[in-house]
């Protein structure tokens, strides 16, 4: 990559930031020469801060939160509305559905309320004063009462009218009435009310919950747009005849929305671990045929990100798939599909986890020309409580019955007598959040950063993680006062691409991680590499590239364990081990310029008490045998791909 192009990358972010236009190309590393020429400044500024418009801080949020408007959340007892959810995420204290006050340690920067599209009910618009309604004299009277401040009286009369069957025909909210207002419009309105550009972003979104046979193919759909566009559609559902459980149909819906409204949407899949082998297929489950060109193109087009960690388990990789990865056995949910109706078999695993999908994606790309699994990483909660609360010491569970109580340490979550699969509440993971390197905290800037995959997943911690790839990083760059500036100047950020290697060059990476300002120190920064060999086989390798203290790697190149300071009984730990910040430059020692590859960063914290330890301490409850009591929080960056 030429120096001019590299600078163009740097300024390309500026264009996005200023003009707020959609980033047409999801490849952060390329830019057309015309645009580059227009914005390329020939003379560098003296001041290193002037003209800088690359993202300088990550924004933390949740792209996947349910409220009472989701039928299953409501059935579980969730009472909080989308408005409550936004208030809580903004840092306000809220009364949880279980009747206890809840507050985050720090506000989040953004939130997507993603309620299930199925069963998003229709409601009458009694109060909007639509002509069809107020044509009726009685309705007119009530309408006037409302307008003159006697709304309470009118409401009671209306409600009584419903129950006694004396309501005017125009107001009966049976299926045949015209004046409708639906729950979707209310969801959109709530997001509009709480969206506060520059301070807090309330995204419009929903979850498309394809779940045929209990196999999880769920996707969250996130709008870049405001209510004026989102209001023109209704969410896509999974039930025929209007909806479908096939992702191809969801992609068609997304295309129709963009074509008609000029808006922008993206979809994020989650919980491949509960799909029983169909989340990242090579053979399409709906047809039994190998993926075709249309599938891979559309998936790559609409699904730039994957939700790799959440309350229902971690989805980076599995010990069976990555036997040499000592951190792979993490918050595992591998019993079967979502409703536990079919048990897991080992052959399913490679089509369920992010790392194996990234590997299979390289294979598919050589066969079909497009990599359908070229996704970036985010984490989110999938909480059904209206509370995006996944800090270990402040965990409000996945569902309302799992909000803090003395019972949740020993209660059962899933129990399917047919398959004998049982999942306990303690297995629910206090995870995760999405971190987005955006130029500003707005719908447009955050969405554009998601689209170009400049994101990483965390399991609930708010560590800052940088990951840059290029051909010319040298060790001195790790001593640069400003790693972000040198990273953008000499390489591409997470989510980017490295094209054919210049002769004799090897990929170099500038990696940096800063601990959560109120969290635990860092154990190590690893680079995970996957590649495709000449025989068409894929491989993976993990490299420890920066770590705390003066530990020496063993003959297997692995850095020994950092140890632990956790006092489980008292649910405490000390930052006497680990490092507050890790910065290094790393060069791939095993590079073959002919082989397609991906690289992503994984940052591991020192061990800390898991939410179960806080519960045991605070409630004085004895955990069940086998309960996991510590956790090593972590972050996964979006990969950088090398494509010769």
């Amino acid at each position, binding site marked *: 990559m030429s120096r001019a192009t590299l600078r163009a990358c740097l300024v390309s972010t500026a264009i996005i930031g200023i003009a707020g236009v959609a980033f047409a190309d999801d490849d952060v590393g390329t830019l057309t020469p015309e645009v580059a020429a227009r914005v390329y400044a020939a003379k560098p500024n003296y*001041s*290193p*801060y002037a003209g800088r418009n690359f993202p*300088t*801080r990550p924004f933390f949020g949740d792209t996947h939160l349910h409220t*009472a408007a989701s*039928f299953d959340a*409501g*059935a579980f*007892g969730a009472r909080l509305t989308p408005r409550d959810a936004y*208030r809580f995420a903004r840092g306000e204290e809220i009364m949880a559905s279980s009747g206890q006050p809840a507050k985050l340690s*720090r*506000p989040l920067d953004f939130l997507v309320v993603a309620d299930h599209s199925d*069963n998003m*009910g229709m*409601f009458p*618009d*009694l*109060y*909007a004063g639509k002509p069809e309604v107020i044509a009726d004299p009685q309705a007119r009277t009530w309408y006037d009462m*409302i*307008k003159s*401040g006697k*709304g*309470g009286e009118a*409401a009671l009369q209306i*409600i009584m009218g419903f129950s006694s069957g004396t309501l005017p025909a125009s107001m009966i909210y049976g*299926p045949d*009435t*015209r004046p409708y*207002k639906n*729950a979707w419009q*209310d969801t959109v309105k709530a997001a509009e*009310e709480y969206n506060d550009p520059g301070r807090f972003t309330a995204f419009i979104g929903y979850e498309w919950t394809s779940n045929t046979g209990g196999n999880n193919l769920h996707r969250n759909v996130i709008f870049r747009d405001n209510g004026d566009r989102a209001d*023109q*559609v*209704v969410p*896509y559902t999974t039930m*025929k*005849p209007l*909806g479908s459980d096939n992702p191809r149909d969801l992609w068609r819906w997304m295309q129709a929305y963009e074509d*008609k*409204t000029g808006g922008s949407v993206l979809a994020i899949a989650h919980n491949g671990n509960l799909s029983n082998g169909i989340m990242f297929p090579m053979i399409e489950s709906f047809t039994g045929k190998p993926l075709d060109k249309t599938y891979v193109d559309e998936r790559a087009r609409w699904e730039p990100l994957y939700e790799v960690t959440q309350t229902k388990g971690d989805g980076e990789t599995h010990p069976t798939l990555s036997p040499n990865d000592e951190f792979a056995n993490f918050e595992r949910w591998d019993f079967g599909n979502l409703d536990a109706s079919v048990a897991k078999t080992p052959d399913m695993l490679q089509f369920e986890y992010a790392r194996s999908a990234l590997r299979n994606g390289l294979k598919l790309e050589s066969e079909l020309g497009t990599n359908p699994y070229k996704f970036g990483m985010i984490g989110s909660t999938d909480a059904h409580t209206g509370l995006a609360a996944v800090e270990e010491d402040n965990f409000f569970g996945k569902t309302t019955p799992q909000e803090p109580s003395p019972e949740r340490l020993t209660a059962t979550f899933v129990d399917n007598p047919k398959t004998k699969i049982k999942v306990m509440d303690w297995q629910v993971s206090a995870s995760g959040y999405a971190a987005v390197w955006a130029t500003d905290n707005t719908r447009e800037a955050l969405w554009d950063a998601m689209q170009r995959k400049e994101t990483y997943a965390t399991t609930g911690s708010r560590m800052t993680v*940088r990951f840059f790839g290029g051909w010319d990083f040298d060790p001195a760059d*790790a*001593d*640069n*006062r*400003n*790693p972000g500036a040198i990273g953008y100047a000499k390489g591409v950020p997470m989510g980017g691409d490295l094209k054919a290697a210049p002769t004799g060059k090897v990929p170099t990476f500038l990696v*940096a*991680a*800063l*601990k959560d*300002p*109120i969290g635990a120190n860092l154990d190590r920064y690893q680079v995970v590499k996957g590649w495709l060999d000449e025989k068409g086989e894929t491989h993976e390798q993990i490299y420890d590239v920066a770590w705390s203290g003066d530990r020496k790697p063993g003959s297997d190149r692995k850095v020994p364990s950092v140890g632990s300071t956790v006092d489980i009984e008292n649910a405490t730990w000390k930052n006497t081990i680990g*490092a*507050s*910040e890790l*910065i290094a430059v790393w060069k791939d020692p095993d590079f073959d310029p002919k082989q397609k590859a991906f690289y992503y960063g994984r940052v591991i914290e020192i061990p800390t008490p898991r939410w179960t330890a806080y519960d045991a301490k605070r409630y004085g409850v004895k955990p069940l045998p086998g309960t996991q009591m510590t956790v090593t929080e972590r972050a996964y960056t979006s990969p950088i791909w090398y494509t010769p």
Partner: protein
Amino acid sequence: MIKRVIREPLVHFLLLAALVFAAYGLVTGQQSATGTIDVTQAKIEQLAGLFAKTWQRPPTAEELKGLIDDYVKEEVYVREALRMGLDANDAVIRKRLRLKMEFLNSAEAEASPPTEAQLQAYLDSHPDTFRQAPRVSFEQVYINPQKHEPDASAAAKALLGPLRKDANYAATAGDPTLLPAAMPLTDQRGIAEVFGDDFAAEVTNIVPGQWQGPITSDIGLHLVKVNERVPGSLPALKDIRPAVEREWMNDHRNVVEQQRFDDLLKRYKVIVEPLSADGSPSK
């Protein structure tokens, strides 16, 4: 033995099934031929409208027929289910109905937007909700203690002189870090999110204009130059109208919902059987 049989869930299910089928036979025997499902023009329009909102185009004739057939199927099932009483005691349906009632209340609340006077009164009576905390803007130079053992503090102090002398020195001074070199006007809470609580508390007390420090954070040592301090204030309504309106509406929604519920509750006599002394249900 009998007790065990009675407790067996399968027995419960079979009994329930027998009851349901008996009821079904009774009801359908009486009414099977009499029901009319009238798919009105308005209904067809609504089905077509929903399709158009989903797909951004009207349905074809075939698609519309599919929607109507499905609606008829749903209607038949719903009516039969209601006749059989399958809606009774269904937790999902009950929660859904409750949600709809609450939705009515919130729609009512939104139908009466606040007046200027109401908003001003709300702002006056809730100053703490809207008060802008004091804010500072600053630059910082980071000193990594691990790189300056044994006396990082002395190493930091040694940088103060050059920093005060040369305005451009800050850009290259200190150790590498992901922490921002400068922060725009930010309140203490916002600073704490990036630098931690201790640092945030200290930096808000520094006098602007000169490089000072070092001050300590959980990450390491920092030399700091505060550029501007803006004292806390209560903004005027015109500057924060959307926020006041949002808060007012949120309160108003709760008030309306409580009023509506209280009104409805008056229509019922509620009898709660006494609890036992320890608060558990009496046996």
